[in-house]
């Protein structure tokens, strides 16, 4: 079986190489049979990688400790779902998992486009198979997942306890789906450049793929934040750690791309910029992988023990050289056929939004790479901490929020001052009232006041958009409000689904503002029976409790939570002692309500006196992070799900155009 796994990777590697050659030859000579063979090759590569991944998964589930990887990342007492998650818990397995997702996507692309985009497909296949070939080479030559131990281990070393958390089962797959998903629009972009078919075909074809990848990248980032929040025990969820940044940067450029492609579709503008954005986004996914796997930058959650850095760097250089050369080659063909009608238009708002998003991405990149850059230039490794990132990105984030409000209100092409005044009046008033209310309510953190004002401003613009749309439909068709609303959304799911996504993002802004401006922190050392207060709660410490299982030993501090004299909850922050790697971890206890989270961490303790140190945090509005994610998901589904066609409403139909006396010459 193990041998078969190894051979499957070799076979996949050989066929991927064959597919690249045949696809390029087929594209060059226009031989349909060559391209068809290359496409079958892509399907075969997927099959072979699937076999390899299944064999490794089988070994993990059956706990075959003769395989080095299985012995290193699982144990006989590891629960089944973590044994499955161990597939992406270590370097080798995660690369195989990556290859599996990539080749699965490639197979879907091949099947989707059997009879479409025949000119693009040779280069799409060649690009996807080149990426696959890189990962397969790593899997075969550098980090083979099927290495066996000379003497089979009697017991595995277990999965890293920090990874033994339910987020482990969903965060990495989401992130990988997002990272790898970006390969598809990238491959189509390269194909468009290679063939010179530079109209919007590649964008329209990959729109769903881009959204799909963006959605999972969003979820991946969000899940990562929540995971850090629930596991790392410092009360926060985002610390600008290099690995967090690695996933955040492609999200930023991907978001910019999603917006700017609309301008190309509508106005035939920003063609070069869109190419640059997708190349940048894909490169950042590879760069992010390089960051987490090279050990160049130390981080709380990277695969440190690897020498993969140079390979990823080389691959990244190759990607950039090929993409930029193609881009330069086609530059004359990518000139815009239109220009900005007015600075007061949705196009220019999108352009600003793009600049801000890329600006944030650059700031994050700079901050992340600063230790490396400073070491290279001055010989001293200087790490910039969260204050740098917050200082730079907070104002940029607020500008972005503002633009999110302006974008939906302003019309494409041109908006007149009079109309701007009329449409902005209500949202601006709402924002100002919200700001004033914050001030009167006693908030003196001016960042928070600005942020809440903008949040209400954006929500008001979205509300106005829905309201006006519904009224327009009612006027046209005479439906009742609800029916008109449903019709409005279903007839333009891209626009209104997009607004729902915006609401989700605004909710995430609420959480960020609440937690960064109003967090309360307290550290207390308590004897049994002692009481302390935090943000309206009274907590009584009732001593330590112990529990023991085969896999883990637990030590919990019991705290009874009272609010206004009423008992509302019991919280048990714990220390865990994992038995296989003999490693302690801290498990937080959280009481979540709509308004805030009470977050407790068990610090040090004295086993004899039962005295314990508790770190308590009150995180206001953090629940909006979860709910924002849910709304974002809903919005993406509205946009992406192929439920019915977006048929144009009869009432919007333009009048037929008649060309009279047209003299058509056959020059």
């Amino acid at each position, binding site marked *: *079986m193990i*041998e*078969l796994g190894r*051979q499957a990777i070799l*076979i996949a590697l050989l*066929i991927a190489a*064959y597919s690249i050659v045949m696809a390029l030859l087929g594209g060059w000579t*226009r*031989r*349909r*049979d*060559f391209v*068809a*063979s290359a496409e*079958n*090759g892509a*399907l*075969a590569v997927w*099959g*072979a990688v699937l*076999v390899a991944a299944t064999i490794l998964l089988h070994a993990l589930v059956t706990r075959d400790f003769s395989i080095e990887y299985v012995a290193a990342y699982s144990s006989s007492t590891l629960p089944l779902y973590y044994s499955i998650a161990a597939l992406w818990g270590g370097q080798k397995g995660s690369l195989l998992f990556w290859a599996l997702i990539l080749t699965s996507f490639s197979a879907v692309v091949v099947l989707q486009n059997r009879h479409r985009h025949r*000119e693009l497909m040779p280069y799409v296949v060649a690009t996807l198979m080149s990426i696959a070939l890189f990962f397969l080479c790593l899997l075969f030559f550098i980090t083979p997942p099927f290495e066996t131990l000379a003497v089979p281990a009697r017991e595995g070393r277990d999965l890293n306890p920090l990874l033994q958390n339910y987020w482990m089962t969903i965060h990495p797959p989401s992130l990988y789906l997002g990272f790898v998903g970006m390969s598809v629009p990238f491959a189509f972009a390269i194909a468009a450049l290679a063939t*010179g*078919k530079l*109209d919007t*075909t590649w964008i329209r074809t990959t729109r769903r793929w881009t959204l799909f990848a963006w959605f999972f990248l969003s979820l991946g980032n969000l899940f990562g934040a929540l995971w850090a929040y629930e596991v790392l025990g410092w009360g926060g969820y985002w610390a600008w750690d290099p690995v967090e940044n690695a996933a955040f940067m492609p999200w930023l450029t991907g978001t910019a791309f999603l917006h700017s492609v609309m301008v190309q*579709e*509508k106005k*035939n503008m920003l063609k070069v910029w869109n190419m640059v954005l997708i190349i940048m986004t894909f490169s950042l996914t590879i760069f992010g992988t390089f960051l987490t796997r090279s050990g160049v930058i130390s981080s709380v959650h990277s695969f440190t023990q690897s020498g993969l850095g140079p390979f990823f760097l080389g691959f990244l250089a190759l990607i950039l050289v090929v993409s930029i050369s193609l881009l330069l080659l086609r530059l004359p063909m990518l000139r815009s056929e239109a220009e900005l009608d007015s600075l007061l238009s949705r196009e220019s708002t999108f352009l600003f939004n793009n600049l801000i998003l890329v600006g944030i991405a650059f700031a994050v990149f700079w901050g992340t790479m600063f230790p490396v850059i400073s070491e290279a230039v001055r010989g001293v490794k200087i790490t910039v901490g969260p204050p740098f990132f917050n200082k730079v990105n907070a104002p940029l984030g607020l500008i972005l929020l503002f633009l999110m409000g302006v974008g939906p209100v302003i*019309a*494409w*092409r*041109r*908006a*007149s001052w*009079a*109309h701007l005044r009329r*449409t902005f009046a209500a949202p601006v008033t709402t924002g100002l009232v919200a700001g004033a209310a914050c001030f009167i309510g006693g908030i003196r953190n001016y960042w928070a006041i600005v942020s809440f004002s903008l949040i209400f401003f954006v929500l008001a613009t979205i509300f106005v*958009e829905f309201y*006006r749309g519904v009224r*327009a439909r009612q*006027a*046209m068709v005479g439906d009742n409000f609800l029916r008109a609303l449903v019709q409005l959304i279903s007839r333009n799911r891209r626009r209104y689904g997009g607004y729902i996504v915006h609401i989700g993002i605004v909710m995430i802004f609420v959480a960020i503002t609440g937690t960064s401006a109003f967090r309360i922190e307290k550290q207390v050392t308590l004897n049994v029976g002692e009481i302390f207060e935090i943000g309206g709660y009274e907590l009584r410490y009732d001593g330590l409790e112990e529990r023991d299982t085969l896999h883990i030993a637990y030590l919990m501090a019991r705290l009874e939570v009272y609010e206004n004299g009423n008992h509302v909850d019991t919280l048990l922050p714990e220390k865990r002692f994992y038995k296989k790697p003999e490693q302690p971890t801290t498990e937080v206890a959280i009481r979540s309500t709509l308004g805030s989270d009470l977050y407790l961490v068990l610090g040090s303790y004295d086993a004899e006196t039962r005295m314990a140190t508790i770190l308590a945090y009150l995180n206001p509005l953090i629940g909006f992070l979860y709910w924002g994610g849910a709304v974002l998901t809903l919005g993406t589904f509205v946009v992406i799900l192929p439920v019915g066609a977006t048929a*144009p409403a009869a009432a*919007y*139909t*333009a*009048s*037929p*155009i*008649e*060309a*009279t*006396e*047209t*003299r*058509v*010459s*056959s*020059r």
Partner: protein
Amino acid sequence: MSSSIVLLIAVLPVALFVLWPLFVGEGVADAPSPPPDSTEALENRKRAAYAAIKEAEFDQRTGKLSDEDYDSLVARYKNQALEAIVALQAATTTATGKDSGRGTKVSFCGECGTKAPKHGKYCPTCGTQRTKA
């Protein structure tokens, strides 16, 4: 030993599957590509103009575009659509070697852009009712 047999059994059909198109050799040399998408690009331009008109109508109805702006924008996009339609027709005529449009009245459906006989209330392609502009 057994694993190499398994491997052989697995590899043969895979190789056959991958190489099959070469044996079948359907249309060894692909037909020369259709002219570099001039008609497709024109079609796209036409469709983009229609979409822009629809969007402008909706923007006007939702109060985001003044009547004056609306009129000038729609006039512009109708013009663009017309240009695309005329160019498309020229392309088709060139391709078929006929000059069917000389000196006659030609009408196009405003919904799908199909050239259609002047008579008839509905577009034969998409069924939209035709009114005189």
